[in-house]
């Protein structure tokens, strides 16, 4: 053990000491965003008491899904240090494609979903391939996609205009009146219990293995604290959502995908390769990683999530229309990932940032819609809050940098 390393003391005590040292050194992690979120909630509640209601919590947890899914795909791309400007257009195209397939051509809705997701994946892979193999900057490829896929969408919808979607299959799951276990109270608590269990199994299992191998491990007190905090949070959310109609199925799908993506990024070879390429392309190449493969697949993932997000957005209106490819969706999805803490410069971030960021954005949106402000004020506030959220984050990261940890 290096004598210069300031080691954490044993036990809960040491955990708090380290926490205090980290806060002073600016290693705040998600704390500024969470604090920001609470401030946003307080302000809107003061403005309109209806804001702090179970109904609004449900509203947020439902409407965050569409953009949130786009954002998850973008986290993968951002981890590479790249950008995907086409996600908004791809999501619009996916909704249109699905509608044309399932409504106009009468294909089985699940098959249509599958075809749509495959189309999203193919689009992403194509863009990724042009970027990775031909070397066109990703910004340009996806900017071209931004325009071209929008064109394809308009062409697809050309003769019919907006198409209403039936309330079946995935559309039902993504619609606003589909809840986990039909909104039974047990459903929400079941999900919460599952989350806590997974966390506990993962943490304690890891501790056991590390102990056995004789490498440093986290003390049991810390693990209990972490599990406990998660438990409080998820059961609170479950309780609130139960006071409204339960847990929207859309949210369940979103959370399950988040867990899977988190696993892929942190615990598999492929995830490690994504981080490596995002950190240093030349080093990755020399380490034998196929950089073009990683790039192509990451764009395919982004395209798939864009398609899924498009279906979720279409679910909120039960229709696929020409306005589906809203460029604001793109901006907001990127903003969510960044607010949540994923670096734009690659190699640093987590999929959970998509959740955290989209929570911030939807919390602002729902408040603004509720207050019925005119659009000019609304734009200014969204812009301002976005900025404030990131200023806090950047300031904390600056302190961090000056103490050598960035």
């Amino acid at each position, binding site marked *: 053990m290096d004598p210069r390393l300031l080691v954490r003391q044993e036990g809960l005590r040491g955990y708090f000491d380290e926490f205090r040292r980290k806060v002073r050194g600016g290693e705040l992690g998600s704390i500024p965003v969470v604090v920001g979120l609470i401030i946003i909630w307080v302000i809107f509640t003061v403005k309109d008491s209806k804001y702090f209601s179970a*109904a609004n919590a449900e*509203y947020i947890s439902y409407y965050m899904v569409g953009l949130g899914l786009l954002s998850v795909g973008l986290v993968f791309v951002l981890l590479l240090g790249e950008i995907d400007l086409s996600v908004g257009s791809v999501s619009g195209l996916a909704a249109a494609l699905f509608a044309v397939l399932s409504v106009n051509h009468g294909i089985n809705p699940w098959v249509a979903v599958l075809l749509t997701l495959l189309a999203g994946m193919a689009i992403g892979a194509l863009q990724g391939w042009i970027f990775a193999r031909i070397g066109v900057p990703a910004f340009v490829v996806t900017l071209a996609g931004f325009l071209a896929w929008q064109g394809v969408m*308009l062409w697809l919808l050309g003769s019919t205009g907006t198409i209403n979607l039936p309330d079946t299959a995935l559309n039902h799951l993504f619609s606003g009146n589909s809840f986990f276990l039909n909104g*039974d109270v047990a459903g929400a608590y079941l999900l919460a219990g599952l989350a806590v269990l997974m966390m506990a199994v993962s943490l304690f299992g890891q501790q056991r293995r590390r102990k056995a191998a004789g490498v440093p491990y986290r003390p049991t007190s810390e693990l209990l604290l972490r599990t406990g905090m998660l438990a409080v949070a998820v059961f609170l959310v479950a309780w609130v959502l139960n006071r409204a109609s339960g847990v929207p199925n859309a949210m369940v799908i979103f959370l399950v995908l988040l867990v899977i993506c988190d696993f892929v990024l942190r615990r598999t070879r492929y995830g490690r390769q994504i981080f490596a390429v995002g950190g240093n392309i030349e080093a990755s190449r020399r380490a034998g990683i196929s950089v073009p493969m990683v790039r192509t697949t990451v764009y395919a993932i982004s395209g798939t999530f864009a398609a899924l997000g498009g279906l979720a*957005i279409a679910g909120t*209106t039960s229709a696929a229309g020409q306005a589906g490819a809203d460029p604001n969706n793109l901006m907001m999805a990127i903003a969510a990932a960044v607010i949540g803490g994923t670096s734009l410069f690659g190699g640093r971030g987590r999929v959970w940032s998509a959740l955290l960021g989209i929570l911030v954005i939807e919390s602002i949106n729902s408040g603004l*819609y509720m207050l*019925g402000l*005119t659009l*000019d004020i609304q734009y200014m506030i969204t812009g301002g809050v976005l900025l404030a959220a990131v200023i806090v984050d950047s300031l904390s990261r600056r302190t961090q940098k000056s103490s050598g940890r960035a």
Partner: protein
Amino acid sequence: GKTGSASSSSSASPSSGGSAVSASGSIGLLLPENTTTRYEQFDKPYFEAKVKQLAPNVTVNYANAGGSAQVQAQQVQTMINEGVKVIVVDPQDSTQIKASVDAAHAKGIKVVSYDRLAEGPVDAYVSFDNVRVGQLQGTGLIDALGSKASPSAKIVEIDGAQSDPNAAQFKSGFQGAVKGKLDIAYDASGQWLPDVAAQKATAAINQLGAHNIAGFYSANDEMAAGIATSMKNAGLSGLPLTGQDAQLDAIQRIVAGTQSFTIYKAYKPEADSAAQMAVDLLTGQSTASIANTTQTNGSGNKVPADLLTPVLVNKDNIKSTVVADGLWTIPQICTPTYAAACKSAGLE
């Protein structure tokens, strides 16, 4: 007990049989976009004023979707959560709004479709007839061309955004009116954007040759600003140019002679009518007093409707229409730049 709080709040409403003046509750007003001035400038304040006059205790919750159907759906949901009793919505996408209308209907909330006819179980509708607007633009253009109107007279047509269903209605009204009477030699979407419209107009001029063009169709005033500039650059200022919305800048151009006319859809009667319908529905009365006709919407529902007539405004009737209605005042129109033109047009 999962169907929760929202339904209980809506089931209470129709008890107050008394005078409209004492009614309470809230009405949601949802307008679609903000790239044209009308909504936040006129419709919203007129509507709020009328509601205040009819029922002082009723509050109006307002939301503007900024041109996004998806945002509008979220806004309807917010209104439902807030427990409004009537929703007045100008749908950004009249098909896509159906799910929101369904959701409101399921909670017992009444829906008034404003300006554009929404799909779904809508309770009342007030609007100007979009196809009629296009027809007026067509006949107005033929009138403005006067003796030059002929089946071989080449017209440049700049439509609204392809993604806006209204644009298609204007277009079909216009094309129906001029069919066989004029030659639409160039037809493209200006996307409701003046700079795009200007460029397309210039491209059309280059393509057809300046001397071969008889007139220009612009779906609205915003784009007419750009087209007028392109016409001027090509030395075609004297040719007819259409518009719609009676924007201030368009009135000024009409005064100056660089635009022939605009279509004035008086916002106040429309907003007043919608407010009356909303308050009626809020208090459980029928809308029959105002809704004198019915319209069938895209999903097959027969909706009681009040269809207002648009007015064509040209140099001759500015005073009796937009000025008389208080939409614009003479000092607003007759800025120093337009003082001379105003004088000759008889506006002082």
